[in-house]
């Protein structure tokens, strides 16, 4: 039960076994959006775009045929910067999710497998961390370490790992008592070996679903931190800081329209994808 992911405790609904058409469409759209942004993040340098840092037009000009999303206050092309922004947002979110999953799962697995004092210690830490509203904790940590992409990422890992620790611990607990695991332990397999070869393989699917669903939330929080000036630094084309630059030039709405739509589409895409993934991997939750 994470504090930030949408609650996934929907009551069981009796429904036909055939997947209805609408379920496939969102997943498809989500997949396409996701692929587009991943592609953008990886290959944007070779796209026929302007330079994201250089001045390419008259400052504050509205959208036009040459500059679809308009020009910002420093004469840079907003579309170019928005597409370049994918690199920072996606890479950072990937890093955050991957680290949070790694740290969280490891500690959660240890807690679940070891039990007793270690379990208590880790889980109290989880409880305390989860007691903070995520943004306040992230703000406090980033403020303490100093603003910047790297520090914002660290802050977000601190915010996110406990959710995975809790999830993993629950998974390990439910798997631990299964016969083949008990058999493995009885046959003298080491703890690490049992954990890695017999328990972990059975627990990855809910983690994967959650990670996909959380991805959008990480993108959102990262942008929020940048927006209040704690994340990326200029002239990095990060979406949150682009919007905060646009907020100063409020009447020139196009400056923040591009990055805003980008965030919206990425989060939407991953939510669609996560929904589909959950249905596929864990049909019971429907």
């Amino acid at each position, binding site marked *: 039960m994470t504090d930030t992911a949408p609650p996934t405790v929907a009551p069981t609904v009796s429904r036909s076994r055939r997947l209805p058409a609408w379920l496939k469409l969102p997943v498809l759209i989500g997949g396409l959006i996701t692929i587009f942004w991943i592609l953008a993040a990886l290959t944007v340098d070779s796209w026929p775009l302007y330079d994201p840092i250089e001045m390419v037009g008259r400052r504050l000009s509205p959208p036009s045929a040459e500059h679809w999303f308009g020009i910002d*206050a*420093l004469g840079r092309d907003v579309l170019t910067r928005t597409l370049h922004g994918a690199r920072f947002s996606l890479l950072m979110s990937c890093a955050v999710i991957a680290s949070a999953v790694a740290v969280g799962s490891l500690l959660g697995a240890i807690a679940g497998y070891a039990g007793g004092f270690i379990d208590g210690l880790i889980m109290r830490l989880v409880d305390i961390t989860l007691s903070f509203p995520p943004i306040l904790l992230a703000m406090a940590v980033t*403020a303490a370490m100093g*603003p910047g992409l790297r520090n914002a990422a660290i802050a977000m890992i601190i915010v996110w790992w406990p959710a995975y620790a809790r999830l993993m611990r629950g998974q390990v607990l439910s798997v631990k008592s299964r016969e083949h695991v008990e058999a493995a332990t009885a046959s003298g397999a080491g703890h690490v070996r049992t954990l890695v070869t017999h328990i972990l393989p059975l627990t990855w699917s809910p983690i994967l679903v959650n990670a996909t669903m959380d991805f959008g939330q990480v993108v959102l929080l990262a942008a929020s931190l940048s927006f209040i000036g704690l994340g990326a630094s*200029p002239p990095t084309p990060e979406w949150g800081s682009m919007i905060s630059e646009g*907020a*100063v030039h*409020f*009447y020139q709405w196009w400056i923040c329209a591009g990055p805003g739509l980008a965030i919206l589409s990425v989060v939407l895409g991953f939510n669609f994808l996560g929904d589909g993934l959950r249905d596929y991997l864990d049909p019971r939750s429907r």
Partner: protein
Amino acid sequence: MKPALNRQLPSWTHLRLAAALCVGVSALAMLPEGASAQDSTLVIARDIDINSLDPSRAWCDTCQIYMSNVYETLIGLDKDNKTLKPRLATKWEANADQSKFTFTLDPGAKFADGTPVEAKDVKWSMERLENIKGGASYMMDSVKSIDAKDAHTVVVTLSGPNSEFLNILTAPYTGVVNSKVASANGAIAAPGADTADKAESWFMQHSAGSGAYELVDYKPGEELRFKANPHYDRTKVGVADIVIKQTKDSVTQAQQLESGNVDVAMQIDPDTAKTIQADTVSVETIPSYNFLYVALSPGAKDGGKLLTKEVREAIGLALDYDGIIDFTVGGAGRKIASPIPNGFPGTDGLTLPQQNLEKAKELMKKAGHAEGFELNDAFPNMNVYGVDMSLLNQKIQQDLAKINIKVKLTPIEFSVWRDRVKSEGIALTTLFFAPDYYGSAQYVQYFGMIEGSPWWNRAGGKRDASFTNPQTETVLTKALSASEAQKDGIYKQLAQQMIDDRIIIPVVSPDLVLAHGKNITGVRYSACCNLMMDEIGRQ
């Protein structure tokens, strides 16, 4: 299950009730306003940046306005922003070498509680300003002793000549406080006040001055409310009730002004000013004494060594000054030659900076850096005088790329910036300055490469003394005992020295947008006091 249901349902009932209420009420909201609108109050929109309302601790632009209108200084600054005029002191005399001053107080001046302003209050206030060691206490640095000769005569003795001392006394931070009331609330003026004084939180909610207004209420992040001081009779106050409303950004201020929600908007930037269309609003763009500058620190631990005299000169020549003014303030700003505001003593006839990439590249080559290098630029991430510092630094980054200097930008909070510039120094940074009174010595003392001056310290003078300018100190001493007639020439010499140091490179003096309703009169910009509220009236 049943109890759970019971526990849940009531909240739902409330929800429905509230929903009905909500719908009914939105109809009400469309009703014309009026009944509760208090038309006589003058509303000023401003981003309130108060650090303290304690007269000896206050140090911010909004504090400057507050102090100017709630407390009175001995000497005032006339509308030409140059001439001194009587305020609490009706007349004053200086000895021959400008080291001893005698002030005669206005016998009619009264504090807001009706008690007269006396020499003991002046003495107490100046001593407290010095001993609290707050932001503005440096203004009392040259004071040796203050004597209350009689109830209406004050004699101030300085430790050395200071021809600018009278100008300092126009700075609102030197305002006179009702010592009896303040002491009763824990204020202490004697040495040791910096730790023993307990009056600051009282001052956050109360004023004890003789100015045209007194504090009604301060709600941090919301508003600062004033009412006219009933015992004030130096001028006739135009509006009795004034409130400064926290309004963060320029666009919102403009919007509020256009809709008639506010009467005066103080921080509309020139870009936004151009979008104002309402014919009920008067917008005037005037030159200001504020400026922003690039500071190069050869003594910075990280990268300072690269900043030799030649490289600093190249950087000065690589900056696109016109472009900077265009980008940061939409063209509404002026170039400025030295770190002394245009129009202050010594600035007439200085050569304004001009971009010259050829010469800059040549200098870089001569310095052995034709291929360029990387340079760190950490700057306070804020918006001052209509200039977005992040925008300014990105423009600097673009400009310096042309002479192959790759600037790495790090925007930081001001507090972090201050800490870093003090400890290890920052190779390239930008900052801003607004005058506290009319006079050029304050700039030389702050920006000159005099051993121990604030920017000498920040530029790393203790680590690298190569840029110390011993001449500046000698000439400054001369300036401080100079007569009015000599001042201009001597300050011009000092200004040229600071230009040649190439440590502080001023880039833009942003214009000020005076925006207010057409029915509002008397809004002007004062070099010492920002906004004088008692001059404002309504037609």
